[in-house]
């Protein structure tokens, strides 16, 4: 049936021409961008962003094409003659679907090919980055493209033209950003998060493509997005299957049961959710984080009466952070142990060394565990994520100055839309094993087991994954992003050597040896943790976290900031920066009013 339906498709200009124009437009536009962006050395992420924007017009054209092609037998009064043959509906729908699915398949292939070419020209060699954007384009162009095809097919059999296009307009409204005001307003009015209802529809298309992308993370392609796209495909496929009226009852029941099982599994997968970045005013976004802090959190400060000597951390980072942490405590006879642990992580269980469950209080970012006697070690199981410092199989930024693990004592680390780094933490020994499909990087040493296990002593155990690479030229351990390729200056051993030269130039007397530190360059951490204008995010005994994206004269400033932070201590340094910034703000406000 494919050949006949393909002929039918090509010969119907009203159906074929829009599809052809879409393919030509996407190809032409991306080829033009490929040339233009290559000339101007624009990072691939921008090219990918422009490519993803085509999903929306593709959705509209695919719906139209599908509706009109499936409507042909009806419109031509040929439906009865065609459908009177055994299993004709199934064969006709199958043939027509296969033909129209060529369009999203071609869209995917063209877009993927041009992205690969662009990346190759940009000098990006990170295989995981290629895999990421190819799978994402497959999700949004091919799988996402099947959804409007199925909707069009269903509507053509159930509704007349006017009703179909009216319903399609409603669907497009719900899918698009235009309807964001609905869940936004309702959520703000009721304090109930209505965004998940919107996401059931909106995640068919890539999110936030009008915003700037975090290069280490990319555009969202998390597991639950696959779940919701597959959910719609299976659900619509199930309805189409019912329309096919298969003659064999056995096949009908078996296929129905299988598809229903897939629908349920996909939806459960979507409901399970996971860590993601949401830009804007969504309930999970960074701005809603500040909303949470303003409304619900009572900041506390308390120095801990105890220390943790050793952390044994088993982390599972697929959908979100799932942690199983065992801590050896310095004091065994306290009635309670206070910790700071980010409020996004839900504590599931706290137990002692014998596995006995212990009572605990969770209040915002704080956790208090009660003990009734001697306690030499403590096990805490928790899971969740921060919308700013994300942790999923797509990417993860967990700097040790952020309480993604229980930090003894109470710390007030709240700041509008990002967090203040927690400084002057005691050193402890860490044994970390991460279960994740991605490679992780850390300032800790890689464990003997390799494969995402780390160990060592530190006051800031930092874990990152995403589009990063590690370089150790000139004895430096430098971890930087790979998504920019050769378009941006490489953050590697050379960069560290240059930074070292600047530090040597500006430091008077005591010099800083950068080879003792792990240098992590991360724009994503800079977005989440308060930092200086020159890009110094954190500095401790074994780690410097920087943001090199500032470019220009910032490198000189960065070298000076490192010297100053080393001299004063990082806590003093960052407090001073914050104080100066607050003063400046107050002065500006006073001038204004």
């Amino acid at each position, binding site marked *: *049936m494919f050949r*006949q339906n393909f*002929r*039918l498709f090509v*010969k*119907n*200009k009203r159906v074929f021409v829009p599809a052809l124009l879409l393919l030509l437009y996407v190809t032409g536009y991306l080829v033009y961008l490929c040339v233009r962006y290559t000339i101007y050395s624009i990072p691939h992420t921008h090219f990918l962003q422009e490519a993803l924007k085509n999903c929306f017009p593709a959705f509209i054209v695919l719906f139209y094409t599908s509706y009109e092609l499936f409507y*042909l*037998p009806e419109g*031509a*009064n*040929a439906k*009865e*003659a*065609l*459908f*009177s*043959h*055994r299993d*004709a509906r199934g*064969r*006709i729908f199958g043939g027509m679907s296969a033909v129209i699915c060529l369009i999203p398949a071609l869209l995917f292939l063209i877009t993927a090919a041009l992205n690969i070419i662009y990346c190759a020209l940009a000098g990006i060699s990170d295989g995981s980055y290629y895999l990421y954007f190819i799978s994402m384009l497959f999700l949004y162009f091919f799988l996402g493209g099947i959804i409007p095809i199925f909707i069009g097919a269903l509507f053509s059999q159930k509704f007349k033209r006017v009703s179909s296009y009216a319903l399609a307009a409603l669907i497009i409204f719900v899918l698009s950003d235009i309807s964001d005001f609905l869940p936004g307003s309702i959520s703000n009015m009721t304090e109930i998060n209505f965004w998940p209802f919107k996401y059931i529809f909106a995640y068919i298309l890539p999110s936030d493509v009008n915003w700037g992308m975090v290069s280490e993370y990319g555009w969202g392609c998390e597991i639950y997005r696959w779940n919701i796209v597959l959910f719609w495909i299976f659900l619509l496929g199930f309805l189409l299957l019912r329309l096919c*009226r298969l*003659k064999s009852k056995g096949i009908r029941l078996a296929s129905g049961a299988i598809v229903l099982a897939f629908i349920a599994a996909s939806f459960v997968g979507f409901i399970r959710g996971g860590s993601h970045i949401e830009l804007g005013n969504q309930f999970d976004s960074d701005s809603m984080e500040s909303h949470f802090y303003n409304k619900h959190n009572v900041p506390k400060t308390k120095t801990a009466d105890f220390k943790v000597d050793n952390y044994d951390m088993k982390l599972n980072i697929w959908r979100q952070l799932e942690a199983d942490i065992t801590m050896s405590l310095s004091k065994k006879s306290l009635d309670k142990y206070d910790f700071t642990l980010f409020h996004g992580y839900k504590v599931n269980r706290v137990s002692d060394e014998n596995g006995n469950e212990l009572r605990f209080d969770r209040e915002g970012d704080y956790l208090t565990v009660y003990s009734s006697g001697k306690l030499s070690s403590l096990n805490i199981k928790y899971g969740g994520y921060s919308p700013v410092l994300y942790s999923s199989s797509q990417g993860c930024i967990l700097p040790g100055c952020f309480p993604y693990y229980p930090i003894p004592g109470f710390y007030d680390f709240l700041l509008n839309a990002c967090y203040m780094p927690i400084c002057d933490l005691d050193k402890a020994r860490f044994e970390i094993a991460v279960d994740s499909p991605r490679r992780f990087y850390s300032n800790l040493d890689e464990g003997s087991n390799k494969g995402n296990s780390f160990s060592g002593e530190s006051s800031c155990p930092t874990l990152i994954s995403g589009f990063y690479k590690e370089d150790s030229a000139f004895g430096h351990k430098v971890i930087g992003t790979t998504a920019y390729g050769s378009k941006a200056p490489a953050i590697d051993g050379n960069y560290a050597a240059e930074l070292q030269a600047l530090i040597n130039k500006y430091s008077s007397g005591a010099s800083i040896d950068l080879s003792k530190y792990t240098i992590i360059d991360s724009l994503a951490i800079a977005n989440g943790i308060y930092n200086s204008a020159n890009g110094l995010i954190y500095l401790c005994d074994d780690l410097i976290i920087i943001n090199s994206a500032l470019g220009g004269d910032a490198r000189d400033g960065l070298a000076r900031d490192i010297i100053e932070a080393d001299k004063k201590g990082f806590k003093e340094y960052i407090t001073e920066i914050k104080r100066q910034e607050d003063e400046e703000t107050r002065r500006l406000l006073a001038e204004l009013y």
Partner: protein
Amino acid sequence: MLKIENLHKTYKKSIALDGFSCELGRGIYGLLGPNGSGKTTMMRCICGLISYNSGSIECGGDKIGYLPQQFGMMKALTLYEMMEYFATLKRIPKAEQDKEIKSCLELVNLSDKARSRVGSLSGGMVRRSGIAQAILGDPKIILFDEPTAGLDPEERMRFKSLLKKIKDGKTIIISTHIVSDVEAVCGSIIIIDRGKNIFTGSSREMAELARGKAYLIEEGRESSLSGNFYIKDRISRDGKSYLYVLSDSPVHAAARAESGGGIEDGYLCALKNI
């Protein structure tokens, strides 16, 4: 062989088939019935277009060809391409498709239009191409729903001669409300009314139903009629106006008895229970 037993089909508010049964061997059958009597519903049930509530249809695995009441084709394709579409749907092996299509088009006298776009064909030609798709693949059971609707007299004649050409070894059902069409070509007639089979027999047997039941009475003397009767027509004769009446009771002596009508009167007698 086609065996239909106790077929029931209801739509939301109405009963379309109410225990319809019949057993059809090879030959041409005329399915007669007024509009809304369930003819099309029954044909759709036979070819599996719609499901039925209860009863059974057995066709012994024979292939079914169907010409629906409203037949159209994809206008962008040529007639040959459209026939190819049908041939693939009917699972005719690819190697045989060309031969089959050509022979069917020849039967309906459309060979010279094979490469013409369907959109350029006249209404009669489209109807004939509908017949061609129904007989494509040599089905043993062929259902024609109102096949002569919209055809000019010449086309009707051609259709009748086509039926004679293809009838051997086949069960052909022609659904229509035009009694004269049935009389000419159908060996047997089935009358369906309100979803029930109210008569099955030959055209002669159907005509027999009206024997001795047709009367001409002068207009104005309707009061002399009793029992079940049906005024079929008004006739002027010798300057007087008469009513052509079918009645199951003897009519007043003043009326002139007719010897009995043909198949059409038989059809009406069956329908009106006269």
